[in-house]
């Protein structure tokens, strides 16, 4: 029977030969990730109520990222509670190393073919590694931590194929904003989105992570990229063991719900107007909107390659008068690499403010938030009203290249004008 990648992973986790979309099965979880916001403080009381311990502490990964650096009283208390729980339970804990969706793949713990859950809506990011990973709420997470099991309705697959290659000045982020614009924020229908085609194959692991990350904005349950040599090389580079990849792909002719085909060669850099990623348009259609804050941050938009892209624009240039550039590298590892490669010094040279390796303004939980009426361009995933600060703040989304170009120009601009 021909099966999609999603079906194969779920079938294995459910102990079956094959599963059919629409089947509701109980599956064994290979890995569960939680963070300081939705994790211990929400889950521990439920576990206590159930009167049980953890199913397998070695399969539970805890990351402190949302309230780091604990610069509010509430945040500091939540961090203290999180650290205490980590000590008592002995789960794998990444403290102050960066944002969960980036730290997890970097740790080598997430492998292709895994069936994994995360206590965060951007958990589909794990799909870039060829893992079926999705986000769940606190009640369900408590159930997983107690039993190691979860029920899942086998999703249909929505194939999103990009033919050709992305041109210079284009990034995975542009693909995702274009998709949000074309398919809408419910275009994923809570099914498995699978990215395929020459343009996707040509992307690095970090770029693929941006695709899978924003499967959340497309409304997919997960966002998969079938593992290949790029996946294997990445895994080796982070010290992870490479499983047999030969069957981890959708079979030729497996039935899918939808198959969309897009041409990567004609894509122009995209921005999304406030307050939805679905408000996507080419950057040069944004009427040179003036911005005063440029943010390179979040799991979506401040990984090593995102920093590298922004620095490529900024090198030898200056920020426009009245523009603040804020950079919050997604992980310590990525920041260290950027430091070693001279990328961080480019940010310093233009006077960018470097923020901690954490969710920062994207979560809007700390001291740094956007003030009233501020117009910001951001490399993050969502620009919902009031998410990053005051309700009157206006957030545009773009790729790290587009964000950096706007910081230099003082208004939204097609970054290719600065790459010539």
């Amino acid at each position, binding site marked *: 029977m021909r099966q999609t990648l999603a079906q194969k992973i779920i079938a294995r986790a459910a102990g079956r030969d094959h599963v059919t979309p629409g089947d509701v099965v109980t599956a064994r979880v290979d890995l569960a990730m939680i963070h300081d916001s939705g994790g211990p403080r929400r889950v521990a009381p*439920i576990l206590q109520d*159930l009167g049980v311990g953890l199913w397998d502490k070695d399969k539970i990964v805890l990351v402190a990222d949302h309230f780091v650096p604990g610069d509010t009283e509430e945040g500091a208390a939540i961090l203290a509670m999180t650290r205490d729980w980590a000590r008592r339970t002995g789960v794998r804990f990444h403290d102050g190393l960066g944002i969960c969706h980036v730290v997890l793949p970097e740790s080598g713990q997430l492998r292709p073919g895994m069936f994994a859950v995360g206590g965060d809506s951007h958990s589909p990011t794990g799909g870039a590694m060829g893992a079926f990973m999705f986000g769940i709420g606190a*009640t369900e997470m408590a159930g997983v931590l107690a039993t190691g099991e979860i*029920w899942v*309705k086998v999703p249909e697959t929505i194939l999103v194929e990009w033919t050709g290659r992305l041109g210079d000045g284009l990034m995975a982020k542009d693909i995702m904003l274009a998709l949000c614009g074309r398919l809408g924020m419910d275009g994923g*229908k*809570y099914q498995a989105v699978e990215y395929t085609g020459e343009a996707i194959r040509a992307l690095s692991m970090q770029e693929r992570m941006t695709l899978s990350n924003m499967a959340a904005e497309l409304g997919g349950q997960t966002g998969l990229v079938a593992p290949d040599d790029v996946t294997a090389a990445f895994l080796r580079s982070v010290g992870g063991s490479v499983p047999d990849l030969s069957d981890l792909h959708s079979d030729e002719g497996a039935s899918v719900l939808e198959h969309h085909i897009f041409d990567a060669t004609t894509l122009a850099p995209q921005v999304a107007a406030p307050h939805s990623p679905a408000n996507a348009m080419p950057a040069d259609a944004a009427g040179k909107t003036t911005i005063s804050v440029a943010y390179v941050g979040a799991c979506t938009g401040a990984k090593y390659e995102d920093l590298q892209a922004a620095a490529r624009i900024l090198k030898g240039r200056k920020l426009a008068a009245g523009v603040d550039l804020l950079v919050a590298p997604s992980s310590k590892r990525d920041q260290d690499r950027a430091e070693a490669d001279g990328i961080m010094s480019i940010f310093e040279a233009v006077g960018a403010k470097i923020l901690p390796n954490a969710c920062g303004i994207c979560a809007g939980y700390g001291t740094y938030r956007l003030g009233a009426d501020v117009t910001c361009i951001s490399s993050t995933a969502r620009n919902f009203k009031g998410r990053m600060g005051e309700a009157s703040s206006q957030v545009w989304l773009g790729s790290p290249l587009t964000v950096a170009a706007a910081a230099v120009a003082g208004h939204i601009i097609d970054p290719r004008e600065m790459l010539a």
Partner: protein
Amino acid sequence: MSGRIFLLGDDIDTDQLAPGQYMRGGIEAIAAHCLEAARPDFAPSVQPGDIVVAGRNFGAGSSREQAAEALRHLQVAGVVALSFAGIFYRNAVNLGLPVLIAPSIDGVLDGDLATLDADGGVLQLTVKGIALPLDPMPENLRAIIQAGGLVPYLKKRFATDDKGPSQ
């Protein structure tokens, strides 16, 4: 138990079910404003056993569990819809709210008296004498609903299975 049908349209989202401005106030306050925008009469007049019937994509939007919890709190017998948003469906089951897919809701009117047989998969319009067939819920999910949600379900399971998680 029979109840009254509240008939709603397509794309009832989680912001309508659990309005953002009451999210800080706990489930009592959220439930008191449930569906306020679409049906101002809903929260003030809904009775235990009443049934929500809706079109496509019920529960679209955010992952907030309170959207399902509010309906549970108001003791509706369940939600019957042409389709559900994925995360809402998950949350509803895990909070013990029966959610059933109807192939068609033709003939159902707002205010109809009805009985929801969640196990048998039937919406019985008592006055009209029409039995509307519903897609039966999978057995493993029915067990969670019958226990009253995931937490009570697990409590029961741990109480009868002192070996802890099954393998």
